[in-house]
């Protein structure tokens, strides 16, 4: 991305802290709303940020969520230090989850998080290294036209 971002900020997320889960996503939603982006794209961004945040809280030790807004796109990256994902293809399958009973009791861990992220992002990338962590990049287009137009 060569364009100078209209917004560039990073937010720390601590693993295991379910009490504050959603705080970063709420902050991101408020920032995007204030920038005057349409409520449709703001909700998409809030959703992918929230699912990333829940994954971090559920599995990772700590992470940074970076939000950038450039003309035409919102770019959200989630960079965590954690166990990593051994088989990304498997993790992307709807319904597949390694969540603990505690996580499931709260209504998380249904194996839908990454699927939601993928379907609500216009561009989605995931890489992971076992024992190191996972990197997600989600791009949401802010102009209503299609990518090819």
């Amino acid at each position, binding site marked *: 991305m060569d364009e100078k971002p209209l917004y560039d900020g990073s937010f720390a997320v601590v693993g295991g802290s*379910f*009490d504050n*889960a*959603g*705080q970063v*996503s*709420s902050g991101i*939603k408020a920032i995007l709303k204030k920038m005057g982006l349409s*409520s449709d794209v703001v*909700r998409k961004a*809030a*959703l992918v940020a*929230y*699912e990333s945040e*829940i994954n971090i809280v559920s599995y990772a030790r700590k992470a940074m969520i970076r939000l950038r807004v450039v003309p035409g796109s919102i770019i959200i990256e989630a960079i965590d230090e954690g166990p990593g994902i051994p088989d990304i293809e498997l993790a992307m399958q709807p319904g597949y989850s390694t969540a603990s009973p505690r996580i499931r009791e*709260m*209504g*998380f861990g*249904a194996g*839908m*998080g990454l*699927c*939601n992220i993928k*379907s*609500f992002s216009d561009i989605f990338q995931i890489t992971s290294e076992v024992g190191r962590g996972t990197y997600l990049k989600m791009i949401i287009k802010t102009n209503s036209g299609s990518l090819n137009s």
Partner: protein
Amino acid sequence: MDLESIVKALNLKVRSGEDKLKEEVRGGYTGDLLSDVMGNSKEGDIWITRQVHQNIVAVASLKDHVGIILVQGCEPANDTLEKAIKEGIPIMVSDLSAFQVTGLIYNLIKPLPAESS
């Protein structure tokens, strides 16, 4: 139909967000899996669930729901209630089951037929 009319029709007890009852209820979503609700509910929905922990407030707020109905006599946890008051999210409670609450509200607002007619 506004939220207040639904509160009256179903005799719901309002635990937070009393000042937000004039909001229009456009539809609803019933579920206890948070990612299901995140992925499939819509703005303006009333969310029917029996999850009571504080993460429900974040979900309702991020998805712009008009409120949350806790079913089966469930009460919001203390920190849930605090958060809902702070964020102005209406939480209501009912002794009825999720099936009954969903059916009653569906009959009141009939979201799909109203759109297609």
